[in-house]
């Protein structure tokens, strides 16, 4: 690994801003891609970071929701949101011109790779931070292969966006409705990453665990984890996940991106 382009949030400045929704577009799986005007956050954001979003005009739900930054360009940040509950449903109902209260950029990002092939593995809604990463890699002239997995074709997200910046995009669906039938981790196995490969993965925990296993001999394997968060910036100690060496990792400040070797994969939660 070479340059660590991101930093711990505690050493930097965070922003809380009420920003305008500039655009809204539908994606697969009922997801919505929001474009927000958030210059302070856009300026600082790096792939892997997230924002904490207030998902109400009133008081319910109480807590902000963590959402990955799916890209940052000029003054804008992009969020891809899947409606799974009260908060994300509210977000998906926003219209251009509405306001959203956002804190960010939070957490660390992916450590950018030196040499070697770059493999981006997204399961389910893992694609957003990896799209941001793919775009930055492309800007840097580095090539990447994107593996996208989903339950079925209709639930795939950011496929075209990924294709625009990656050397190859391979798709797997559990029902076989698009690409290879099976899990995205099968694609990783098939690719048989070399020891020079840099693997970047985001998705459900069992998928990450399997990627970490397959990637044992890769040059590096970074995973982006999820945890319930109350604050998102290191104040509450709520976002702990068990560490490989005993003790806990804090997803919001030490992560969400971790070298896979730091994470306790057996019964992690």
């Amino acid at each position: 690994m070479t340059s660590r382009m991101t930093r711990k949030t505690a050493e930097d400045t965070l922003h809380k801003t009420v920003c305008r929704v500039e655009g809204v577009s539908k994606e697969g799986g009922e997801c919505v891609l929001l474009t927000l005007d958030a210059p302070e956050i856009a300026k600082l954001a790096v792939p892997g970071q997230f924002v904490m979003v207030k998902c109400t005009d009133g008081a319910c739900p109480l807590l902000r929701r963590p959402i990955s930054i799916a890209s940052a360009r000029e003054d804008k940040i992009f969020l891809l949101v899947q409606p799974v509950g009260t908060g994300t449903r509210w977000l998906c109902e926003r219209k251009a011109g509405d306001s959203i209260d956002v804190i960010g950029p939070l957490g660390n990002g992916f450590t950018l790779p030196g040499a070697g092939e770059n493999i981006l593995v997204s399961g389910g809604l893992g694609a957003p931070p990896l799209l941001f990463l793919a775009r930055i890699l492309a800007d840097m002239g580095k090539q990447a292969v994107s593996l996208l997995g989903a339950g079925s074709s209709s639930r795939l997200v950011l496929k075209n966006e990924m294709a625009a910046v990656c050397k190859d995009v391979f798709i797997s669906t559990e029902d076989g409705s698009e690409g290879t039938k099976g899990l995205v981790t099968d694609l990783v196995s098939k690719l048989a990453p070399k020891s020079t490969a840099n693997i970047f993965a985001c998705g459900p925990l069992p998928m990450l665990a399997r990627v970490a296993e397959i990637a044992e001999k890769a040059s590096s394997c970074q995973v982006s984890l999820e945890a319930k968060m109350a604050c998102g910036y290191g104040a509450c100690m709520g976002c702990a996940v068990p560490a490989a060496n005993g003790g806990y990792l804090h997803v919001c400040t030490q992560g969400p991106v971790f070298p896979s070797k730091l994470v306790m994969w057996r019964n992690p939660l």
Partner: protein
Amino acid sequence: MSRDTSRLKTDIAGMNLSTPLIAASGTFGYGDEHKGLCDLDCLGAIAAKGISLLPRIGNLPPRIHETPSGLLNAIGLENVGVEAFLEDKLPFLAKARPACIVNILGESFDEYAQLSSRLDGIPGIDMLEVNVSCPNVEEGGLSFGVDPDLVAKVTKTVKSATALPVMLKLTPMAGAKLAETALAAQEAGADAISLINTIGAMEIDIERKRPVLGNVSGGLSGPAIRPVALKMVFDVASMVDIPVVGIGGITSARDVIAFLLAGASAVQVGTGLLIDPDLPCTMLDGIEDYMDRHGIARLSDITGALELP
């Protein structure tokens, strides 16, 4: 900062606060996590994350869960321990303008004694806040705070180990005995009282047939508990003569004023800060507006000014 907070000044047991807003322990880390998110000058004091003698890694996750208008947490008092606190964390807190309250917790009287004497005389610390919600290992796991005798004994232990002002933080789990625990603390020499800590609670994931928290149960905070906290503050403030700091679900200037009217001299903001770290500044605007509209010159004129039917 440009805000003139002179009429917002308050005094708790000799500790001067520039505003009546205190960051509640466990919800503001060690005060240095918020770069850019909170103008610290809006806070009168910061109650640091609870400190124990030795570092604690905290509870098995999941540690938090949202409930209707509430936050359920079982952090397990994860903290760096008193030595690392003094080395790494205190310098920032001591330098910041808000007063520095160190929240301490022990599992035995001896731990409270050791912690208090270790913190005694250290520059930059303005007050100790004693968390008595912790399970008491000597007395079989029930928390110190539910028994007036134990509260008195903890208070005496801490008071005799330090010259710092001591604020006892009461737990709502004392139930009908709450006012008694407050009086016990006062008689044992406490300089102030803060309340409430979280209320014991749990939630279940019915699909997995398991508690949602790794620790099975936890403590409830946030707006859901505010009416309960407000009554407890009212009840205790009408019993004791020492200053009372109100805590529980405070998320607006209106809430701050309600707690002051009920008898609090200052308040702590916990869950509200986690969500909106800039809340203190918004609150000060609202408090000043209220004082203007009601022609109130000093904050202390609000404390206890509730009229009863």
